[in-house]
């Protein structure tokens, strides 16, 4: 696969790198291990941040700062005079060809611009390079061990080359989420509407059956077709001689029952007939309205469901908190929220997962939702709302229509237990009134019927039965149509849900298998790296639960104990070694177009021995040129012991080491190949009287020259220097040089001229007295420009004490002695 090496980074005005007018330019070698050393606070992490911003367009740690701290305003260097920062990445195609420079700028308003030479799609290249492998630091490794298996699996998916698959898997799960899906389609409301319609249609069916019997004089056969029904009832009416003229040329539903009653009344000519018809209508009205009384047990159940909801509601804190918890859940579930133990509301960090806490709280709200649904469904299924019709009939003038008032909140499932009790009592009252009324109507009807001729009474009764039949047939048809429509909608909705569930499950299984396969592939390499770093009887193991996104870490062997917890047993350095081994193994197998890695301070938990082993693993088993197909590694470190190692390795030809020095206020410069620039800059500052900016550069220049002497004249340096505080580095190096000179002088083997031996003492006195003794104790105010100029001169004179003039004499070409005892 083709890809890109990083040849050079230039930075100006970004993070801790001011360098106004003279960008920090760090040259890198694609065919070597690259290392950059710098003391703390000099700009090493600024280089890391610059590449991070160049590739991703953001620096998460700044964006995550509290709003009051305005993290966005810290992208640019605060001392830079311009209003933008600039990063140039010079990239070399791994397949060969001309290098490409991409320029990324950010202005003070946070606007980002990316440019490249014509014909180069800079955004596409940066997108290709935006891989999890490119920028790794100690924090990343620490997290790998500490994360929960699911979070580890998701964050590590990118390292297995499965980032897009993992993201897609999560998106598919999101769209197949039942709650969101049902909310979108109002599934519960549709189901409730169907239940209500079925109740109403059933009641209409009962009424049709009763009216049919009254009209036709036979039991209604439920399997009878509607045309047959209509024919039967038409025939029943049409067979009454008095009503024949009103039926002719009409269908049953076109016959007007009122006209039929009027005809009977006219035939009788009696007011009593009119009264009877009214009583019959009233009777019908009350009978139908009373058809849906709940049983006593149903009343008790309604109260119990409402009280259960009250009880669930007491465990929550209201709708505002529900919104807060839902929003918190969204934030905590997002990959960008790395620490699930940090509260997104108050930023406090704890030992337990805030997500678990929030989901527990949401669970309480969901209990309320479930209780509400149960209450609403019970209300709808019982068709309690139909009691509103009876209520209208039976209610006294000064009473409130309680069913009418509560039917909406009861259907929504939000009725309280107290209101439910009141309602059930009210329904009992309505029931009593209904029974009383029907009794009264029945008595009145009997009384009138006794006084009227039986034949015409029957005609009026049949006309009223026809009216009920017409009305209920209409209701039944409407409800059946509604049921058909809603059920068809639910079938379509279920088809979509089934598809989404199937798609999500299908892809989850495939992604899980791929991750498992790739995890298995990296495990042997991970073990090889781990063994080469730690050299102990400890074997890391990675596993993945079938079908899940989890990645679990274990130790398959811990000093002969098998299959034990890595988190519980490993010390910090072992945990770090475990994580580094996993990442390097993954990077070596699944690296993408970015053929380079920046590793920032990844060894801080290691002692010097394990640091050495890790560097050997990187050089010999992972990186170019040791592994020709491996990536280009760029190590960033502040560690003095590693700096010594880097210096040693840099003489091997497969390692490129640089040191950077400076301050965020002025500039940061690479020492390698630029010592003259440092010297010139220092002298320029001193000429301008700027002691504050000159002092750190003198240290940089001094240490460079001392290390140059040690390296070139082959002076042995005690290991203890590697562990010394960096501010004592120069005096330690001078002491080492002086000890070696004294030893050779005592042995009579010192090659230095007498004048050079004398010059050493004078130069050291000046350097120590006017600079080191103040610098090491932080007494910068003791410096003066004049004395520091003398120090700069003494540094050069000190170095000249170890040099001789080459042939011909007077050429001015000075070379270092081969050693303290040999000139060449």
């Amino acid at each position: 696969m083709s890809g890109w090496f990083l040849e050079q980074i230039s930075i100006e005005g970004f993070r801790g790198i001011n360098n106004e007018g003279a960008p920090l330019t760090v040259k890198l070698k694609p065919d070597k291990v690259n290392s950059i050393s710098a003391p703390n606070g000099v700009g090493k992490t600024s280089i890391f941040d610059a590449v991070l911003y160049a590739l991703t367009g953001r620096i998460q740690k700044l964006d995550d700062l509290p709003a009051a701290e305005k993290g966005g305003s810290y992208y640019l260097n605060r001392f830079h005079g311009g209003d933008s920062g600039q990063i140039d990445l010079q990239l070399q195609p791994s397949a060969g060809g001309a290098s490409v420079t991409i320029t990324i700028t950010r202005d003070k308003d946070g606007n980002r611009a990316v440019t490249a030479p014509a014909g180069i799609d800079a955004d596409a290249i940066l997108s290709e390079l935006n891989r999890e492998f490119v920028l790794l630091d100690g924090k990343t490794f620490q997290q790998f061990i500490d994360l929960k298996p699911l979070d580890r699996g998701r964050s590590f998916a990118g390292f297995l080359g499965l980032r897009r698959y993992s993201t897609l898997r999560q998106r598919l799960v999101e769209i197949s989420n039942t709650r969101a899906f049902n909310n979108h389609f109002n599934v519960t409301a549709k189901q409730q509407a169907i239940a209500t319609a079925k109740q109403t249609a059933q009641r209409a069916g009962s009424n049709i059956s009763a009216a049919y019997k009254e009209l036709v004089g036979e039991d209604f056969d439920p399997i009878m077709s509607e045309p047959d029904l209509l024919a039967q009832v038409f025939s029943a009416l049409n067979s009454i001689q008095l009503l024949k003229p009103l039926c002719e040329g009409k269908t049953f539903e076109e016959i007007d029952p009122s006209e039929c009653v009027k005809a009977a009344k006219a035939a009788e000519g009696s007011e009593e007939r009119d009264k009877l018809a009214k009583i019959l209508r009233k009777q019908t009205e009350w009978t139908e309205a009373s058809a849906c009384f709940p049983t006593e047990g149903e009343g008790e159940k309604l109260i119990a469901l409402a009280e259960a909801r009250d009880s669930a509601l007491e465990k929550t804190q209201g709708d505002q908190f529900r919104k807060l918890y839902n929003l918190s859940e969204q934030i905590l579930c997002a990959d960008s929220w790395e620490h699930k133990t940090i509260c997104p509301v108050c930023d406090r960090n704890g030992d337990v997962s805030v997500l678990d806490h929030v989901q527990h709280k949401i669970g309480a709200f969901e209990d309320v939702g479930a209780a509400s649904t149960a209450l609403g469904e019970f209300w709808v299924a019982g068709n309690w709302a139909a009691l509103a019709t009876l209520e209208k009939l039976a209610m006294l003038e000064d009473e409130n229509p309680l069913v009418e008032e509560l039917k909406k909140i009861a259907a929504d499932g939000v009725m309280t237990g107290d209101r439910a009790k009141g309602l059930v009592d009210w329904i009992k009252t309505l029931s009593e009134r209904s029974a009383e009324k029907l009794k009264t109507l029945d008595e009145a009807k009997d009384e009138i019927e006794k006084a009227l001729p039986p034949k015409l009474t029957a005609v009026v009764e049949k006309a009223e039965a026809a009216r009920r039949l017409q009305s209920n047939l209409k209701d039944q048809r409407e409800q059946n149509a509604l049921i058909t429509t809603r059920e068809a909608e639910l079938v379509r909705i279920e088809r979509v849900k089934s598809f989404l569930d199937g798609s999500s499950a299908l892809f989850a299984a495939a992604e899980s298998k791929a991750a498992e396969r790739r995890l298995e592939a990296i495990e042997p390499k991970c073990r090889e790296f781990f063994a080469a770093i730690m050299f102990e009887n400890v074997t890391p193991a990675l596993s993945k639960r079938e079908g899940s996104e989890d990645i679990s870490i274990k130790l398959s062997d811990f000093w002969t104990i098998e299959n034990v917890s890595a988190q519980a047993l490993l010390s910090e350095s072992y945990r770090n070694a475990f994580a580094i081994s996993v990442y390097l193994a993954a990077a070596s197998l699944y690296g993408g177009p970015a053929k380079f890695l920046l590793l920032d301070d990844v060894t801080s938990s290691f002692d010097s021995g394990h640091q050495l082993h890790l560097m050997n693993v990187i050089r010999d088993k992972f990186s170019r040129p040791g592994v020709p197909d491996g990536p280009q590694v760029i190590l960033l470190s502040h560690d003095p012991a590693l700096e010594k190692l880097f210096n040693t390795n840099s003489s091997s030809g497969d390692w490129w080491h640089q040191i950077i020095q400076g301050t965020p206020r002025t500039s940061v410069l690479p020492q390698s190949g630029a010592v003259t620039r440092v010297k010139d800059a220092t002298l320029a500052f001193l000429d301008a009287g700027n002691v504050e900016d000159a002092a750190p550069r003198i240290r940089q220049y001094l240490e460079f020259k001392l290390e140059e002497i040690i390296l070139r004249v082959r002076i042995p340096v005690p290991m203890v220097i590697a562990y010394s505080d960096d501010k004592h580095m120069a005096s330690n190096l001078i002491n080492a040089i002086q000890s070696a000179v004294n030893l050779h002088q005592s042995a009579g083997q010192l090659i230095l001229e007498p004048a050079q031996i004398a010059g050493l003492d004078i130069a050291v006195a000046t350097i120590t007295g006017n600079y080191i003794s103040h610098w090491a104790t932080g007494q910068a105010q003791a410096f003066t420009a004049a004395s520091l100029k003398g120090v700069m001169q003494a540094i050069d004179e000190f170095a000249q004490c170890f040099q001789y003039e080459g042939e011909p004499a007077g050429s001015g070409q000075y070379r270092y002695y081969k050693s303290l005892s040999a000139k060449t």
Partner: protein
Amino acid sequence: MADDSDEYEIDDKKSVDGNLAALGDALKEIDSDLADILSPKLQNMSADASIAKDQLFDALYAATDEDSEAKT
């Protein structure tokens, strides 16, 4: 709507886009009409683009319309 799509696997030799195209084919085995709606969105979904869920749901629902099925 026969579901014989459990053969789908990510092929390590294919690119991500190639595997997503194969997924689109596998989804057709679950429901061809709905796969036509979802498949073109897989690339964006894998790139972490936010999903307009409501629009997607409506489009999928519209694709279940028997009349529109009859036309296609």
